[in-house]
């Protein structure tokens, strides 16, 4: 017979391994830790500073399979100071990778729009690599209310 403490520990372990999602998605669910690991791989383990990134995502959306996203980075985009790359990862998709964009001074403005998939309500993490080697981090959140999520 389990006592109360053992039962609580077991419940915690079950929650930590991730609740199965309607039986559609198995144990392949990635967590925020995988997202951070992936981001560190992409940026080469540089120190992540805050600021300079603006992410526009819908606060609430019905359709996780088409979420419009706009990223703009505060940068003059001159020959000496420009955004080299923008990496985007999701914290709670089955795989964290979304996209990477490579820019140059020829762009004139560091702004990119695209459409992404979000399986459920979650945080999207964006890292911007500058030409001087520094890396900035930004976050955006979107609530997905649709039943099927971004799976379709």
């Amino acid at each position, binding site marked *: 017979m389990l006592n109360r403490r053992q039962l609580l520990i077991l419940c915690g372990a079950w929650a930590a391994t991730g609740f199965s999602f309607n039986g559609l998605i198995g144990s392949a669910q990635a967590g925020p830790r995988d997202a951070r690991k992936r981001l560190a791989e992409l940026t080469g383990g540089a120190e992540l500073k805050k600021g300079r990134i603006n992410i526009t995502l819908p606060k609430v959306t019905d359709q996780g399979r088409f979420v419009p996203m706009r990223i703009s980075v505060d940068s003059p985009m001159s020959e000496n100071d420009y955004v080299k790359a923008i990496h985007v990862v*999701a914290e709670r*998709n089955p795989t964290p990778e*979304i996209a990477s964009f490579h820019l140059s001074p020829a762009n*004139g403005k560091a702004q990119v*729009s695209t459409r992404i998939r979000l399986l459920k309500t979650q945080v999207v993490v964006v890292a911007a690599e500058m030409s001087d080697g520094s890396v900035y981090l930004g976050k955006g959140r979107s609530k997905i209310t649709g039943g099927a999520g971004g799976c379709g």
Partner: protein
Amino acid sequence: MMNEQVHVKVPHTAKKGEVIRVMTKLNHPMESGWRRRQNGEFVPKDLIGEFSCQFNGAEVFKAEFDSGTAGNPFLSFFVRVNQSGRFRFIWYGQNGEHYDKEADIEVS
């Protein structure tokens, strides 16, 4: 190659040094590999891995995609134009196929 699936939007004219917005979209399912069929098998991945935009032969923008990009991938970005020329938009699939389209711009 198969360019009827690529849609592009580039202004016809611009002033010298102007920063213009270009948009492009590809009709493609971008199968993520997360979905299962009714018999429990995963639907195999079928993604567009890379996108490249060239202006007069020089690459001005590049993107890499993965499962998190939505189907019918859409991109909008900015380019500074200093001379008239031709944009070329190329989407590379994971199985070696590619889709491209060109658009001209006149800079005064």
